[in-house]
Structure formats: C-alpha cells, structure tokens
C-alpha cells in the first residue's frame, strides 16, 4: 500500500478524537460491537466459516460440499480436534453470488468471529469475496479449481491447497489427447471466463504436444439449442473437446448424438458438465465410448485405494458415486474432496503454527506456505499433491476415464508434474 496514503483510522481512534474515550469505557458493556474485541485467544472451539453455495447455480455442488465438510470435521474432532480444541463449522449461504459472498465473508469475520473462511467453489464468488478477506485479514481457503489464486489476482490471505486449478488440469490432459485420441482438435466451450480458460490453456498445451486446435466454437451462455453450431465443426476434426456447464448440457449431448450418429470423432470432455448428473440419464447414451477428465474417479475403480474407500464411507457415497441413501442423488465427486483435503491442510497448518486465535492468522498462512507435499493418505484421499507456497496453489494427479458400459473407467492418470507451469506470482513477498 502506498506510503502516501492516509492510513485508515480505527473506530476506536476516531472515538478518541472525539474525546469520548472515557465514556466509551463506561458504556462498553452496553455496546454490542465492543464485545468483539474480547474474543478469547486459545479458548473455546475453533470456528471455521463455511461459505456455502446453498442456493443459486452452485446449489448442487454446495449440497455435497456441505456433506463432505461435515464428514471431515466430524473425523477431525474424533481425532481430538485441532490443537486440542473442537472444530465448529459456521455455515452461511452466499447464494452463489459475488456480492453476497463478500457480505458473508464480512459476517464470518466480524459477527461470528470465525478464525478463517473456506469452501467457496464458483470463481466469480471467489473474486468477489477475496478482496474483503484480504482487507479483514482473515485466511480465505477456496475449493474452487479456478486459476484465480495462482494467477496472482487475489492476495496473500487467499489460498487453494485442496484442489488443482483449471490451468493445470487442462494442461495435463494435452499429452494423453495428442498421443491417443488425435492431434486435430475442435473445442466447444461456453463463451464466458471458464470456457475461455479452457480455450487459452488447452490451445497452448496441445500445440506444445504437436497438435492444433482447428476450430474454437464459443457458445453464448443463454443458448438452449446447439444444432446450428455443429456444422462449424471442421471435417478434419479428430477430437471434439467439449466443456459445457449448466442444465443445457443434456440438450448439448443429445443434439450432438443426433448430428454425428455413429460416425463421430473421438470425444473428450470435462466432467464439470455432468457433476451431480447420472450417466444413465436418458439422452446421455451417446457418451458411451467417450473420454472425460475427472478430478477424482466417480465410479470406484478395480484398484480403488483404501483411502478412497474410507472417504466414500465417511461422506456417504456408494461405489457408483451416488448417495448411499438415495441412488438418484449423484455426488460432485470430482470436486468435493477439495473440502476434505483443505480442512486437513488447515489442521496441519494450525498445528504447525501453534494457532491459538486470530492473532496467529499470519503464522497460519506462513505455515501453509511452507508446506511442500502431501502424501496419498486418509487426509488426502484423492492422491498425493505438491504445494507451491509462492502461488498458494496445490498440484495433483488428474484422471482420464472412458465411459464403458455406462461406467467411467480410468484409462490414464497424469503425473503431478504434467500440470506444472511457470509461477505467475510470489505471494510470500507481499506484506500482510
């Protein structure tokens, strides 16, 4: 911050300026705002503010993020909590809206007296909320897969230690696609920032593998029918790369099937399109034999790890990726592990920094920045990871699955290194 600027006076100093200090002391017990300064250090439970997409476009994700969070916290508390203290989750709905997201961060920090905030998924909510977290100096752990944190657009208080970002995911797909599916790619993506990230990062990554994007077809977000876009797919296309989100994906797949019939190119998509949607949904039969990126395999694989078994049991997901209680309630398995793993990173960070209360928030950030790797374990059931403390971003394995008899079977697991890229920021050089 510029030295020339006038630092923001606190309300207390403003009151002193008014000569009301003595009166304030006498009245403090009657003014609810004053009580927030009396937050006891090191006593009582650790309060984690969970910014949840309960309503709005992210609600299906939010429901599963909540279940995962509750399961993770129950496990942490069973193991004795953090630094001997119980962990309590305070949940607020952000409506998947950036304005409300910022308000919720403020509420966690100044009304609920939370120790930190975590759990945001949708990128626009992260962008809207992170500035307030930085101003309020409260750690903000996002579970979003957006490239926002690693791009350097946010601030030192924002971290993403539980899930790989989209740039890394997209980049890691390129070698498999170029070597196994084809080198002439047509991309179909939604015409907003998430789609543009795919377009930009995948185009560069596939060119590095000797392939090329022969056509980029951006679909306006208000579109409900896609047939008129398909004639723009060049005949030379060897691989159709698609990433569609929202309810229109069902129409997209159905119309794609009607357009191509049995004579189709190889098809590769991101499972973001079908999170919380069953592959047995009518209209999705066309996906048989196509490939998907998965952040964590939805269907239990033949070589399923013990960690994945434990994780599924804890969050209440069966081997087909649906709720144990309701087979029609499909999980967001490719993303929801991020809440689990983030909470375990927070636990490690608090233990490493000897966290007692809000005055130790900076030590917590430094402790997470100092982390370098996470072992594949019950704490990290999705897989091993490498943490980049400078960019506040974690890197992990990605999975490429083929739809075979209605089940997604993992064909390839990328190395962590496949997703590495040059650092765009060094948050550790920023002041708190």
């Amino acid at each position, binding site marked *: 911050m510029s030295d020339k600027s*006038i*630092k923001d006076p606190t309300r207390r100093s403003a009151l002193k300026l008014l000569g009301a200090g003595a009166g304030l002391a006498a009245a403090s017990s009657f003014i609810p*705002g004053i009580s927030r300064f009396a937050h006891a250090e090191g006593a009582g439970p650790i309060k984690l503010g969970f910014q949840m997409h309960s309503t709005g476009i992210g609600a299906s994700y939010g429901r599963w993020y909540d279940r995962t969070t509750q399961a993770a916290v129950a496990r942490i508390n069973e193991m004795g909590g953090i630094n001997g203290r119980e962990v309590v989750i305070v949940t607020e709905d952000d409506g998947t809206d*950036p304005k409300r997201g910022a308000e919720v961060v403020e*509420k966690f920090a*100044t009304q609920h007296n939370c120790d930190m905030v975590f759990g945001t998924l949708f990128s*626009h909510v992260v962008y809207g909320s992170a500035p307030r977290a930085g101003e309020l100096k409260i750690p903000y752990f996002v579970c979003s897969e957006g490239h926002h944190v690693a791009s350097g657009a946010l601030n030192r208080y924002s971290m993403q230690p539980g899930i790989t970002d989209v740039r890394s995911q997209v980049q890691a797909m390129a070698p498999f696609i170029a070597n196994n599916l084809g080198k002439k790619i047509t991309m179909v993506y939604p015409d*907003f920032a998430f789609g*543009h990230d795919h377009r930009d990062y995948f185009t560069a990554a596939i060119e590095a593998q000797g392939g090329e994007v022969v056509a980029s077809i951006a679909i306006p977000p208000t579109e409900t029918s896609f047939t008129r876009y398909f004639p723009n797919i060049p005949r030379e296309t060897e691989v159709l790369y698609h990433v569609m989100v929202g309810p229109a994906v069902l129409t997209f797949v159905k119309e794609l099937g009607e357009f191509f019939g049995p004579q189709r190119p190889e098809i590769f998509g991101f499972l973001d399109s079908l999170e919380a949607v069953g592959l047995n949904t009518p209209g999705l039969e066309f996906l048989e034999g196509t490939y998907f990126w998965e952040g964590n395999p939805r269907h239990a694989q033949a070589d399923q790890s013990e960690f994945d078994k434990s994780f599924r049991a804890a969050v209440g997901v069966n081997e087909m990726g649906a709720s144990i209680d309701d087979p029609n309630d499909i999980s967001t398995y490719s993303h929801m592990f991020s809440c689990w793993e983030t909470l375990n990173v927070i636990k490690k960070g608090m233990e490493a920094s000897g966290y007692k209360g809000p005055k130790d928030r900076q030590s917590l950030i430094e402790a997470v920045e100092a982390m370098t790797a996470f072992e594949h374990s019950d704490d990290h059931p999705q897989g091993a990871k490498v943490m980049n403390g400078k960019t506040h971003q974690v890197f992990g394995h990605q999975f490429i699955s083929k739809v075979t008899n209605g089940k997604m079977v993992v064909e390839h697991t990328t190395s962590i290194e496949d997703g590495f890229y040059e650092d765009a920021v060094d948050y550790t050089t920023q002041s708190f």
Partner: protein
Amino acid sequence: MTKNSLYSHCLHFGTIALLVALFFLLPAYHVGNLSRIMVLAVYAMGFNLLFGYTGLLSLGHALFFATGMYGLGMAMNTFGLPSELALIVGVVCAILVSTAIGLLALRTTGVAFMIVTLMFAQAGYLTVLYFGSYTRGDEGFVIQQAERIFAGVDITGETSRYFAALILFSIVFLLIAYLVRSPFGRTLVAIRENEERTKMLGYDTVRHKLLAVIISGSISGLAGAAYALLFGYVGATFATVQYSIFPLLWVLLGGAGTTLGPLIGVVFMFYLIDLSSELTQAYMLIAGVVLVLLTLFAPQGLAGEIRRKVFKWLP
C-alpha cells in the same frame, strides 16, 4: 422557509446525522453492512428519480450500474488511471450510455419502455461476456487493495470506507431532495401524473424525460463506480437482470416517489435476507412472503404509507 420545508430539512439532515451516529454505535458487522447499504441506496435513489418521480419503469438499470462499475474498473486495471480520474471516467461512461439509451428507449412508452430497457440491459450483459478478454466476463476482476486510494486516503478500511459511502450518499440524497422540489422535479411529477396535460401546459416533456433518464442513469453509474472502488470487485453479475430488479424492489418497499424510501427499502431487504438466511435455507421464501404482505398492506411502501397516514409533508 415554510413549515414543510423546515421539516424536510430536519428529516434529511437528521438522517445524515443518524448515519454518522450509527457508525459509533453499531457493531463492526453492521457498520460494514451500512457502508454497502448506503452505496446501494444511491443506486436506488437514481432509479427512484425515474420510476418514483417521473413514472418511467426501467427494467434495465443494471446496465447503468455496471457501466459505471466497468468504466471505473477498466480505467484503473486496464489503463492504470488513478481512482479519482477513474471515477470520473465511470460517471462519464454512464452519462453517455444513459443518453444513448434515453434517446432510443423514450421513443416507446409503458410496457414497451420496460421491454426496451430490459433488452438493452441484456445486450450490455452479453457485451461484457463477449469481450471477456478485457472484462474477464462472468468471473470479473479484482481492483487491488493497494490501488484503492482516493484523494490520498486508503478507502479499504472500515472507517474511511464508511465515511466515503456516507459522503456519497449524503450528496446524492440532498441533491435528489433539492431536485424533486425544484421546478424541474415538479415537472417530472406532473409528467408522472398526467403527461398529456403537462404537454398541453407547454412543457417539453420529451426533454424532461430524457434529462430524467440521464440523471437517473448517471447516479446509478456513480453508485456502480463507487461500489467497485469501495469493495474492490467488478463483475458481470452486476449487469444481470437480477440487479435491474433489485432497485425496483427496494424502491417499491421503501416508498416510490419519496426521498427516504430508497434507503429504507435497501435496509429492509438487506436485513430481511440476512436475518432470514440464519433461520432457514429457504430464506427467499420468507423474503417472498414478506414482500407479498407488504405489497398487500403497504402498497405505497414503508415511507409512502407513513406519508399517507402520518406525515403528509414527507418529501
């Protein structure tokens, strides 16, 4: 000074004094909320000038709010302008856009005016997405804390942000109070009540309505620019139809055609959502029921009902 005028002065300056006092009395969370509420109330006041006083229902005011927001945000992030200049850029952009929209949309009336403004706003939203390389589309972008210095003051802190919002609110609040009591404002009310008769009396109603659109759009744009500057985020969400409906709700709840109504409406809606969301995830249902009840039993809005039943002088 007439008695009503004296009451009006007391009400307006009293409201500002109350907002100053609340800063010292309220807990930090509510102080933060009030900062936000005051900026949104500026947006609502801009809308109220057109809807409440002129009788023109726009469903596209998010376009003006977002224009101010992106005008400031891109001036700072893309062109590196200081915040003071960027604020001017944001407002100038809003003036230009509202002039253009006014010239086109005022060729229509009634329902057609609503639809035309709605469609322009939707076009604006899609334009933001289309130029995503510059605007970052739906994700939006952050204005870094270090850049948010205004007139040498770091406006990212609790105190400075609150008083920046209060100064902005007070200026627009008093300006609107003056405007609606001026001959210009009374002509707008006359247009609202009976445009044909106003025209027959010799007033250039087209010019007055165009000016109302421009002033209303510019104030909304100013609110958008201030919101971006004070809270550090610029995003396409603010250009969606939802953010065109919000000021309509705020003004209807608070009282259309009253100077205090927009502030009351924003406070009411903000805390209705905030408090009901603590009770249930179906908080929008609670909000909906309350809105229906208010519409049934207080059709003129909260301030409007107070004016109808108690204080006839309420401006």
